[in-house]
Structures are given as structure tokens and as C-alpha cells.
């Protein structure tokens, strides 16, 4: 059914910390690895080892540069389905293959019903849907529906593959509809934001903005004894010498 549920019991989603994402693509690769055998399998690759490879991925990691005239910054930016609350990707679907689950808000495609008209991918502003030309159906992030409820996995493993894979712990999973959940508190504390609110799609996922640079951040809370080495006088001429020699 492409009519949207009025409310969803939970609002499961992801939070991505742009301050600490190192852009290693581990989340994207791990997503590909899990989902190539999961709910939406296979994620077809064409010409994988040729000159012009292409394939279906649910997660893509962009790298942006910001420039305010004085300073530039590099921001790594993973992009995947945001499991929107008002997703037109669902309402435009003519077959009912696309739907939003009432119990947890996850947006899915029923591969048995999809006719591969591609309209849903046109309706998604975030580029979260990729067509599998081999299967003739649309594919997208499932929030690892086959992991998060999977009783065959250890409790700690019942999280999306991208969250588990991230070596920097830049990705978090949880119920963004519950204001007291850890993930909601994290969003609150860090001023997490939704992408392109002007679309009216109301994404569930949030991004945590890069923190202010050290020179603009005021008191960073660093303990005095950890501050720059030149301020340290150990009282020992040997150590002072060593400090100077090593600081050169």
C-alpha cells in the first residue's frame, strides 16, 4: 500500500556524525557485503572488473570541501535512505511495491510487486534508490531489516551492517521517535539536522554537524597538563633538553 501510515510506532533510523567520519567507505562496503546476500539480494554489479564498472549500492560516501574564504575543511559524507516520514517515493509508486512500515517506519520495496518503472527513484531527492537492471526492480536500503530483528544473531549484532562496520563510530542506530533514546539524546546534544527540510519529506535520519574548529571553539575543555608541550617545565634539564630536541 502506498498510502502512508499516519504515525509509526517507532521511527528507526541512522545518525551519522560528520565530525568524525573519516571517509573510509567501510560502511558502504559492509552494506554491500551484507545486502548482496540479504533481503534485496543480489545487488548486481555489471562489468565489475572492467573499465567502466557499475552496480547497485545502498550507501555512497561523498567528500565535500567547504571554503569560507579563510579556511577550508574536508567533510566526509555518507548518503543513504533517510526513511522519511513523508516519502513521495512511496506515494508515487503505482503498484504498491514501495511501502512504509507502520510498526517501525522503515521504507521498503517488495521485489515481487515492483514493475521497475523507476518513478520512485525520480521522486527521491536524496538519491537513495538504485535500479537493478538485471533483476528489473528497484532496490534501496532496508535498514538491515534482516539483521536488526534477526534472533539468530547476538543481541549486539542486531544493528545495521554499516553501524557495526564503522571504525570511527560515526554511525548510530536507534529509535528517533523516542525522545529518551540514546540516539535522540545524541541528536539533541549535538544539534543533529535533517537533510533538505525544504522538500517536506521529513527524513528520520539525522546528521551531526562537524564541530567548530579548535581556534573558533573557545574552551575545548582540555586539561591544562595536556596543553602544548612548550608550556611544560619538567624541572629536569635532561627532559627539558629532550623536549626541545623532539619539538624541533
Amino acid at each position: 500500500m502506498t498510502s502512508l501510515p499516519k504515525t509509526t510506532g517507532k521511527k528507526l533510523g541512522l545518525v551519522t556524525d560528520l565530525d568524525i567520519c573519516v571517509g573510509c567507505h567501510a560502511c558502504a562496503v559492509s552494506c554491500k557485503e551484507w545486502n548482496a546476500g540479504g533481503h534485496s539480494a543480489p545487488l548486481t554489479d555489471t562489468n565489475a572488473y572492467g573499465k567502466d564498472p557499475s552496480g547497485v549500492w545502498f550507501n555512497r560516501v561523498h567528500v565535500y570541501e567547504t571554503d569560507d574564504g579563510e579556511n577550508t575543511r574536508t567533510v566526509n559524507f555518507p548518503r543513504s535512505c533517510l526513511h522519511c516520514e513523508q516519502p513521495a517515493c512511496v506515494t508515487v509508486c503505482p503498484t504498491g511495491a514501495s511501502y512504509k512500515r507502520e510498526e517501525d517506519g522503515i521504507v521498503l520495496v517488495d521485489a515481487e510487486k515492483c514493475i521497475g518503472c523507476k518513478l520512485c527513484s525520480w521522486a527521491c531527492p536524496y538519491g537513495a534508490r538504485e535500479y537493478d537492471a538485471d533483476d528489473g526492480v528497484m532496490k534501496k536500503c532496508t535498514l538491515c531489516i534482516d539483521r536488526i530483528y534477526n534472533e539468530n544473531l547476538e543481541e549486539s549484532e542486531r544493528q545495521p551492517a554499516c553501524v557495526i562496520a564503522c571504525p570511527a563510530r560515526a554511525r548510530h542506530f536507534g529509535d528517533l521517535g523516542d525522545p529518551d533514546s540514546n540516539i535522540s539524546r545524541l541528536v539533541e546534544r549535538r544539534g543533529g539536522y535533517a537533510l533538505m527540510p525544504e522538500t517536506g519529506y521529513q527524513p528520520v535520519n539525522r546528521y551531526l554537524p562537524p564541530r567548530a574548529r579548535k581556534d573558533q571553539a573557545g574552551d575545548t575543555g582540555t586539561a591544562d597538563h595536556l596543553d602544548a608541550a612548550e608550556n611544560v617545565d619538567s624541572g629536569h634539564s635532561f627532559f627539558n633538553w629532550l623536549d626541545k630536541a623532539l619539538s624541533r
Partner: protein
Amino acid sequence: MDPAYSVILFTSSSGAGYGLLIWLAFTRLSGAWALSPMVAVIGCLVALALITTGLLSSTFHLGHPERAWRAMSQWRTSWLSREGVFAILTYPAALVFTAGWIWDAVPPIAMTLAASATLILSLVTVISTGMIYACLKTIPRWHNRWVVPVYLAMAIASGGLLFTLVLAASSAARQQTLILVMVVLLISWMTKWAYWRFIDRQEPASTTGTATGLGHLGTVSQLEAPHTSENYLLKEMGFSIARKHATKLRRMALNLGLLLPGIMLVLAGMSNGFAQLVLLSAALVLGLAGIVVERWLFFAEARHAVTLFYGRSL
């Protein structure tokens, strides 16, 4: 947006078909023109053939054509589904309407009802086609008030060019009628002109800075793309034609779609018999070519919000 030939073919061919049905049904209801019944039947059949060609072309373009029937189910929310439902509903009405011209078994009241239903359903189907595009907020050059009028006007104008042949074959292609078709053609391209003016002046509501939410850090540009070669998103939604080419093609569309058919219609008004038929056929072919170029541009000039994430602009 990628200008897929199946969609261009579908919208122009079925648009012309519905346009012709609109003219024929209007003629039947108003009695504005005296058509020879046999010619009217052939006209109806040509219209249905054009519609069917369009529908089949878009169906075979699907990943799973054998599941196409499922597309009728979500009419509550989806304009694509509504288009499918209206397109299918048009068939029974149009078939009764076609038969009614020559078959006495269709009583006049049924014929009037069938003509009305054909007229209304044809209009609504074309409007639904326009709405499929106009409802997409992700593509500002489609999400505006000009898209549906353009689809409707182009369908009626191309149907009008077809209709002149029906008239000529019924020896009823008088000068006033050809002038009327010319005016309709002019209005349709004026609507398109208004659309072009509108998209040329549209201020993009989003940039890479607003899309990523990083704008407060300064100008945002893409330093490194997520993948080394094109993916589905860029192939399907990243296609964009350079402005200077678009300007040339717009001129070409106007020449093919308006100027040349206009000249042919004027000449046809001054001739009769076989010469008139040839001139009107030329007007039709040129007019349709103009619409195909216009439709190609409709896709090629449209930019999708996802390209913002790839550092492009809307």
C-alpha cells in the same frame, strides 16, 4: 533527466491519439463538422492505434512488463497509477464511440454518452500524464504550473493536425477550420514558450550547501565523488544538456512544430483534393517532429535534486 525514447514516444504518440479522440468526440457532441461516418471510424481507430503504441512502448520499457497490471492498484496516491486506470477506462468508451458512427445497434443516447465519456477520459488521461511529472518536487523544472497545460495543449494541437486529415478525407477541410487548428497550434506553443520563460527565470531553491546542510561552513563543493564511474543515479538523473544546445533545439522545435506546419496549413487552405491531403500530412509529420524535440528537451533540460550531492546545481 535521461531522455528515454520509450517515454518520449509514449507521451507524444498517445498524446496525439487522445487529442484526436477529443476532436472527434467534440465533433459528435457539437455537430460542428459533418464527417463521413466511415472516415470518422478510421479516425477513431488511428487514435486508438496511436494510444496503444504509446502504452505498449512504455510497458515494454518496464523492468517487469508482465506485472504491468499491478500499476492500476495505487490510484489513491499515484498519478502513474491514475494514468493507467484512466487509459484503460478510455478503451470501452472509445470503442462504443467508434462503433456508434456506423453501427445502428448503438442507440443515439448511448452514442452521446460514449462520446462524452471518451472526451472526458481522454482529457483526464492527458492531465494525469502531466501530473506524473508535475508532482515531482525533486525536479523544479517539472514541479510547476506550466507542465500540465503544456501536455494538454500539445495533445490537443497534435490531435488537431490529425483531425484536419479526417476533415479533408470527408471533404470538409474548410479554411475557417484550418485557421482554428492553426490558432490551437499557436496557443500550444505559446504555452510552451511560457514554460521555457518560467524555467529560465526560476531561482534554484536548493544548492549543494543547503542539500548537505554544510552551507554554514562556506561554499560547498564536491572534492571526491563516491564512485569512480557513472552509476544508475547519474545515468538516469544526471543527464543535462548545455544551455547553448538547448537554445538551438528550442528554435528547432518551434520551427518544426509551429512555423512549418503553420505554412502548410495556410497552403492547404488554398488548395483542395489530393494536394490538400499531401499538405496536411506534411503539417502533421512536421508538427509531431516538433513535439518529439520539445519532449526530448523537457527531459534533457530537467535537473534533479540528487545532482546537488554531486556538486552540481539545479
